[in-house]
């Protein structure tokens, strides 16, 4: 599933995806933390059939009901609070980069000052992986740090 992100100046960010059933769904994350869920009209794909406005609390409840976690939302607020903080989800390639190597092998921390904060493998989240943690193809690695550091860390990870 592809999620597309569009900035809405003065309002927040809109995320958009097509569900497997064919419906286009949009989520607006407002600057004040409120969320709108919108269902696009099949006749007029630019407009919404309806929207649901959720408070921050409602949104996390709905996220739990849908079986998700709140990591993304919390990270969002975090990057708002620390100016210049960059957060990137890096998917490990089938081969090359650090795939099948340990995090320590990449010397990411020493060379780029960025940190590997968590690894998501399948349905499991592994917070704070040790340097001897071996990365596998398809793992999603959460990297944090300055924008340049995260960029160089990403190229180390993916090769």
């Amino acid at each position: 599933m592809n999620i597309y992100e569009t900035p809405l100046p003065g309002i927040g960010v809109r995320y958009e995806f097509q569900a497997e059933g064919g419906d286009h769904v949009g989520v607006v994350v407002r600057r004040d933390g409120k969320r709108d869920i919108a269902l696009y009209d099949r006749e007029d794909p630019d407009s919404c059939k309806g929207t649901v406005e959720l408070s921050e609390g409602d949104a996390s409840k709905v996220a739990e009901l849908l079986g998700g976690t709140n990591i993304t939302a919390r990270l969002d607020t975090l990057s708002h609070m620390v100016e210049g903080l960059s957060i990137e989800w890096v998917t490990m390639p089938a081969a090359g980069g650090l795939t099948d190597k340990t995090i320590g092998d990449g010397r990411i921390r020493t060379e780029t000052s960025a940190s590997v904060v968590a690894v998501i493998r399948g349905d499991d989240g592994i917070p704070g992986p040790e340097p001897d943690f071996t990365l596998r193809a398809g793992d999603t690695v959460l990297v944090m740090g300055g924008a340049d550091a995260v960029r160089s860390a990403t190229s180390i990870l993916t090769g």
Partner: protein
Amino acid sequence: MLAIALPLEVLPEPETSHAGAVLIELGVILLVLAVLGRVAARLGIPSIPLYLLAGLVMGDGGFIPVSAGEEFLAVGAEIGVVLLLLLLGLEYSPEDLRNGLKSNWAAGLLDGVANAVPGFAVGLMLGWSPTAALLLAGVTYISSSGIIARLLNDFERVANRETPIVLSLLVMEDIVMAVFLPIVAVLLVGASLLQGAIAAGVALGIVALAFVISMRFSHHVSRLVHSRSRELLLLGVLGLTFLVAGLADAVQVSAAVGAFLLGLTLSGQVADDVRTLLPPLRDVFGGLFFVFFGLMIDPRDLIPVLLPALALALVTAVTKIYTGMWAAKRNGIGPKGQWRTGLSLVPRGEFSIVIAGLGVAAGAESQLGPFTAAYVLILAVVGSLLMRFADKIPPPGTWGGRQQSAPSVAAPSPARARHIPPT
């Protein structure tokens, strides 16, 4: 007479009754605004045109005289315009401004030319000075981001695909205003061409400085006023705002412009806090500003400008619609969405009044006030109605009886959208 009147003046009594009269008038005005605000909400139109109308029927040539409180109203209106522009400047983050400039500058250019030129031309046709005509160009150019943002929310169109285009045009207009307002402020002082050019250069320098501060040092400015206590934050922000606005006024860049540039400069946590803290205060004083603007206008002066204002409203409604449709089409929006984009840009409001207010305060052109009042009254109301019924009004493509073409497949353009891996 004089001998009898004099001793009365030194008595403290009239003083206190004057304060009472001011409070009574202010109370009546605020209550009228409260009632009008409810009426506007019921009718589904913005409150700005009704506030203007309230000002028009009060004061000189109106039905309700306002005399005692006029002095306070004048100060209140000035505070109102400063707060309005501070929050307008705050509306977009430096990042929004940067992205806006990058992505939609062509549409922004069309927007500027198509909507400012008719205003300028009509100003000249009415025999106004070039400066006054330039002000009118600003009035017709700038859409009301206040009205539009609120209506997008009310009509649940925030998630619509055309909405980023509407917003990015509003961002462009905001940027243009940052350059336009200081230049006009300088021209209004009545400088010669050379003086004007130098002063405009200085003004642009200040704008550039404000942008640099906003991009590089905004956290320093923000730390200066930031506080966890709402009271201290409010005092800090208001103090800084009034100080900057007053200093800007002292160097003849106009208080409104100073506040606007300060708004552009603030960002981060302080900007977020101010955005939640100041709107109620802005609404009260902003309401007073619109009333005061109407108050300064004799409704009888509206009659001679009504026809040209109506004609200009019609022309600039069409040019705005065209601008919006063009921009939407370029971004791959379907016909219905293009139509909604165009109609969404029609409302003019607070910014137009602020621009005209600068001219009125400087005595640029006696007709500018009434003309702008009539123009904004028409387009604030008509524009919001057009926006509301956008889906019910058939777009021009279907006017010839042709069946509308199939909706475009609206995949978001990959250039703007960022792909996020599933988590």
